[in-house]
């Protein structure tokens, strides 16, 4: 029974992933899609480079630039997946008008959304790889591919992606109830994580109360571990007291907690949406 359910959920995830990929890749011809996939992340990186040059006027160490560049590159996952998954609800409900039929099918919506998120993860992975390659080749970011701690890097990456997807599903739940405000909410939450998780500067610089929030978020440990495994060091004094293993354990613990919270909140919201008749409410927004 339990194994059968796991099989069903995996199948749902796989199917939703396929559907998501069709949507990601099918909107334009392959060449245009490839060009877009390359130009977009490079343009984002260049914005960051120019901001860095203007703000620091070359007075800050190159280590900080590498810190910012890497944090920014991996943070693409957060924005793309958070926005992508919550957009699934909007898109399926308003544009394709299929949410009601997906919802009443025997699959579990949570895994369907998870699968749709995977498609976003794939396209974002391409963008992250292009950004990192651009950084190594043109901006001389000191990444030695032979010195990366790959096992730790891969574990960290996947746990982080899992937690981002869980957050995306939580936002998707909220989108079920608040069609008008989901974009602002996603932007706002993404912005909060950008500030609090050490994406562009160390959490040491944050006010103490905000540091408590930072330390409760698995994404903080995710970015820190990614930097350590790729660059071999990090600049955060607050987190430097933890070993890699300790950071990984804290990240796993906070991830489990967040996944449980995400699941609970999503289910509660889904119940409210069913109660208030919002699951298939088309408002042509």
């Amino acid at each position: 029974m339990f194994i059968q359910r796991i099989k069903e959920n995996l199948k749902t995830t796989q199917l939703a992933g396929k559907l998501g990929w069709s949507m990601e890749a099918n909107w334009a011809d392959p060449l245009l899609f490839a060009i877009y996939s390359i130009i977009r992340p490079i343009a984002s990186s260049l914005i960051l480079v120019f901001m860095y040059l203007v703000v620091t006027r070359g007075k800050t160490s190159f280590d900080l630039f590498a810190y910012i560049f890497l944090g920014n590159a991996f943070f693409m996952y957060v924005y793309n997946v958070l926005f992508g998954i919550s957009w699934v609800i909007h898109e399926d409900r308003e544009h394709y008008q299929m949410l009601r039929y997906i919802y009443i099918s025997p699959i579990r919506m949570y895994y369907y959304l998870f699968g749709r998120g995977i498609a976003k993860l794939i396209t974002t992975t391409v963008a992250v790889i292009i950004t990192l390659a651009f950084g190594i080749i043109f901006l001389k970011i000191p990444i030695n591919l032979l010195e990366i701690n790959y096992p730790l890097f891969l574990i960290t990456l996947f746990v982080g992606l899992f937690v981002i997807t869980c957050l995306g599903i939580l936002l998707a739940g909220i989108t079920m109830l608040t069609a008008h405000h989901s974009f602002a909410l996603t932007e706002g939450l993404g912005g909060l994580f950008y500030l609090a998780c050490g994406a562009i500067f160390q959490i040491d610089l944050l006010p103490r109360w905000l540091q408590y929030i930072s330390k409760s978020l698995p994404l903080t440990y995710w970015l820190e571990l990614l930097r350590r495994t790729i660059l071999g060091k990090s600049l955060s004094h607050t987190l430097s007291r933890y070993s890699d293993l300790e950071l990984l354990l804290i990240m796993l613990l906070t991830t489990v907690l967040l996944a449980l919270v995400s699941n609970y909140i999503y289910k509660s919201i889904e119940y409210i949406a069913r109660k208030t008749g919002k699951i298939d409410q088309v408002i042509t927004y």
Partner: protein
Amino acid sequence: MSYAVETKDLTRTFKKGKKKNNTNSKTSNLIMALDNVNVTINSGELFGVLGPNGAGKTTLIKILATLLLPTSGSALVDDIDVVKYPEKVRKKINMVSGGEHSGYGILTVKENLWMFSQLYGISNKIAKQRIDELLKLLGMEDYAKLKISKLSTGMRQKMNIIRGFVCDPQILFLDEPTLGLDVQISREVRRYIKTWVRENDEKTVLLTTHYMAEADELCDRVAIIDNGKVLACDSPANLKKSLKQDAVYHIEVNLMLDNLESFDQIPGVKKFAYEHKTQTGRTFLMFILENDCYISGITEVISNNSSQILSLSKAEPSLEDVFVSLCGKALEDENRTQN
């Protein structure tokens, strides 16, 4: 006894929305979409819910299809409570709604249908075989490889109807499935629905419609619903029989008559309804009289209104007349188009 669908005092209310200076009681801000609905549908039955727009038909289907929770009362699908065990109910049902543009436009007809078959855990081989059969049966095989964004509204709706059948559900909810379809496609769809239920004893269809002819042609039993209340529930033949002792007259006049409400006061008139067609300027009047002798009083009133009678006929009671007798109003124009 076990039913395919059973509702007990099923009630659903909706809030009207925020109103300023609302000094009325709490209940005044509520719309009663379903009001203590008690319906039982047997397995193998093609059951119709007939009523005008806003009668509560879609709300009923949404609750049974686990999309919406009732405010009170209970609803069972194959003896399973839709509130407590929605996952179990979903394995037995599917739903199709008419008059919408649903479907993943970037996928082809076949891809859309295949994807849905997979959501229901149908094996790849069976799914492909069934999709081909259904596409052929409903005359869509030439559209199989076309992206659905390129389909006409009618073809898209037809594809959605196939989507409803592709998982071979035990109970199928069809919410106005032929809404907006042309006469030819509507006929094909009706024919298929009828065949599907007749050939499969254990299959049940709950169909909502506001097309009288559709309900009359397809349904074993019909529940007439208005303002969230079930007013009558029986076979179309029995419903029509209930009017046999009355005289049903249809009259068409060339003007929009003044004081139409006064027809209700004429002796012998049990029920009266009318429908004015703005395009032609004509008015269609329907009377249910205690007996034939009262028709002269009607024609006299029409003549006194300086209106000309274009046609007058005594009709065999139809479902529409039953509806008029129960609700005191006619359904919309589309009925005549469909008829």
